[in-house]
């Protein structure tokens, strides 16, 4: 066989080995990539999910409280003063109309938070908006504590 033929044969063998190795590597790379991505995605998604869930639970509980029958007649004045604050409180629910609206908007915003990662929506931006809605709702309810804090720092009662 000529030198040219030897080189062509050698190149062919090298390419065959590279292709075979590449296919094995790609298969393992897919697994490794999926795993790495899932680990990171689970962590990021979980942290977002816990915070949106916290706000949702907050809104759900307060809406449920507002639907409760008002306290005994003798407590009505105190109840209005305590829950409503600045004169717009509803004596029948103990939660002002403004607070009602804020709670509904908060709950809606929490439900709208992207459950899937997509290019069209920035979860961090949506989270910032949700935090703003939460602050507004909490202010309307005259609730300042506890604010949501990540798990490691914990809430302060």
């Amino acid at each position: 066989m000529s030198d040219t033929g030897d080189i062509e044969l050698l190149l062919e063998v090298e390419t065959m080995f590279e292709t075979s190795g590449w296919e094995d590597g790609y298969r393992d790379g897919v697994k490794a990539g999926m795993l790495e991505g899932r680990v990171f995605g689970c962590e990021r998604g979980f942290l977002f999910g816990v915070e949106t869930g916290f706000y949702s639970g907050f809104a759900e509980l307060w809406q449920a409280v507002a639907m409760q029958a008002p306290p005994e007649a003798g407590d009505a004045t105190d109840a209005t003063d305590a829950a409503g604050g600045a004169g717009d409180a509803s004596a029948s629910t103990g939660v002002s109309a403004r607070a009602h609206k804020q709670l509904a908007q908060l709950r809606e915003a929490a439900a709208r938070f992207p459950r899937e990662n997509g290019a069209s929506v920035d979860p961090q931006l949506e989270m910032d908006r949700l935090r703003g809605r939460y602050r507004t709702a909490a202010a309307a309810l005259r609730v300042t504590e506890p604010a949501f804090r990540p798990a490691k720092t914990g809430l302060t009662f």
Partner: protein
Amino acid sequence: MDDVWGDADDVDFDRQMAERNWNRLQDTHGVAGYKDGVIEGKEAHIQAGFDQGYAQGVHIGHELGRLQGILAYASLVAAKDADVQRRVFKAHPTDEDLRMLRVLYGEIQSVTPDTMFTPDFFKLPVPSALVGDAANAAAAPTDLLQQQIEPDPTADIAFHEHTVHFKDKLLAALAPLVHDSILVAVGLS
């Protein structure tokens, strides 16, 4: 006779050298190809893995967060606002009641991504389409990405174990204290 044995030695020697060269070629180029393949495979699918994990994480985290929010504020209003307290609780909660709620809150809050997403959680079979035909995987990544969005039974198990566990504990803690209508309204009863 000497020449004959000499030829045989040469043949063996040539065969051994050929095998060595073959193996060396295989090692050198096979490994190089493998490294390239790993990098390309990871790059092509890490985003799909992230998207899949993100959806699972948000789903699981949201349910646990809901329980946190409910419990945190049930404890808060019990301690601070007499009117709301009457609306939430059947009777005035004792210090022991409040302590118990705070302990439970701490338990739920201690669930972090590390404790939720253990190595077992990630021991999932990668869909056969991804491992069966690497060349095809490279040629049609979009189809394969779509296959990754399918529901993940292992995630459901983890989700079920954690949320049902805490939901049951939360219901057991709140049921004697909180008005039934509130438990129903927040989906605990």
